[in-house]
């Protein structure tokens, strides 16, 4: 290696290092460009996307009525066996037997938030909610019943 080549290499090395240091220095002097979110301190202002898939919930209106007919389409669509629907037979005013929802069991610990159950639901009874802080001390607490106590099927939903 010639002396000239050696000096060129040293010059190139110092130049490239300085270039890199310029970028680092720029951010040192411009702290406003830092985008770190201070979770969990920013819980109050934290905004999640409206489509964020956090957990499955069942929609209830003000009369404590839901739209789940107990058709088990979501149970069949689920790849992990997350959903278990227990049905019962109601007697309609005409005296006929009609299949209805008793308990909607949702195993949050098995759920992968793939959204297939929501897609499969013919009546739009279940949706994805944004809550994502699911840590509990006992995994039994993750087995949830989605229909509220005393709730019943909304009239007109078949």
């Amino acid at each position, binding site marked *: 290696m010639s002396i000239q080549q050696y000096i060129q290499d040293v010059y190139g090395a110092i130049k490239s*290092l300085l270039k890199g240091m310029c970028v680092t220095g720029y951010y040192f002097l411009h702290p406003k460009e830092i985008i770190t979110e201070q979770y969990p301190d920013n819980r109050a202002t934290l905004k999640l996307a*409206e489509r*964020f898939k956090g957990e499955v919930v069942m929609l209830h209106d003000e009369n404590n009525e839901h739209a789940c007919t107990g058709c088990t389409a979501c149970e069949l669509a689920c790849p992990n066996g997350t959903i278990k629907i227990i049905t019962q037979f109601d007697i309609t005013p005409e005296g006929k037997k009609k299949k209805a929802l008793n308990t909607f069991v949702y195993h949050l610990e098995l759920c992968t938030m793939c959204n297939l159950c929501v897609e499969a639901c013919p009546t739009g009874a279940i949706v994805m909610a944004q809550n994502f802080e699911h840590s509990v001390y006992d995994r039994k607490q993750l087995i949830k019943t989605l229909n509220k106590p005393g709730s019943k099927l909304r009239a007109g939903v078949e």
Partner: protein
Amino acid sequence: MHEVAGTTPEGDFIINVGPQHPATHGVLHLVITLEGETIKKIEPHLGYIHRSIEKMCESLTYRQFIYVTSRMDYLSAHINNHACALCVEKGLQVEVPLRAQYIRVMMDELTRIASHELWWGALAMDVGAFTPFFYAFRERETINEIMEETCGARLTMNYMVPGGVMADIHPQFQQKVNFFIALYKKKIEEYNELVTGNIIFQNRMKGVGFLSAENAISYGCSGPVARASGVACDVRKRYPYDVYEQVQFEEVIETGGDSFARYLVRIREMEQSVHIIEQLIDNIPEGDFQAKTKAVLKLPKGEFYQRVETARGELGVYIVSEGGTTPYRIKFRSPGFSNLSALNEMAKGGKIGDLVATMGTLDLVIPDIDR
């Protein structure tokens, strides 16, 4: 039986790298035979994160099995899902609406950029530069936000379904992507100043981990690893799917074959991905985002194969159907496995200090190799 520690009869030293080693980016176990500091042989031992995804898919329906493939190469989850959706569509002979094709391709390219961003940061960290990792994650966060808004998840999206995509794009999607493109074009120069032009980085990369074109082909390498050795193997160009035929982009090929060539291929590939998104983002056609399919999908009896270009190379999905609602057999041809098998050729004769840099340019994702 392999010897996994101690010395060989010839007096060579055997050491283990991994399975819990930060530089292997996952549970990869390498058994290395050393002569002094020179590597004589590398043997990857796999199986630490085997979840038998292929067997699992056999008990899932054609709608359900797609979500599992997000867990293979989790950095290109969209592209894995895309491959499965395309393969099922091939069997069903469903025509995917043009709008869905546009959305799919844009999502694929955004995923590719996000994946390469992470690789870039991790590689720089492997060779000792810590700050680029944060810069890479800053830009990746912009993509993750776009994904979160449209798909509802940041990493395992499960957005592609047979027949199209699960939901229409978010109203703000175009605006956000345009913002990202403008941001990215500014930042890529910063990347080049910070890392590509850096003399220490270049000296660590140049002439290290050489892979010849013959070896790249015989080991079945694909993606940036093979293209850095001068093998033209971009599936998007050779076997175009969806709207890749209509977009203009350059197949990035370098002939160096060393670590630096693999680095350059990925950096330039990111620019091409931005170029593809630019062409599509303002011309998304109106229409359905999903073709009408039956509630229960049944593939006709036969065999179906579809390949796509993931961020790491060629992913093949092979479905054998007996005519039922679940596949009889599924096989995934993952790019990482073939790329890893060429590591012995690359690192042989080199120094152990260069191994981490070589491995970094392979861009290994271990769950993709093990499945």
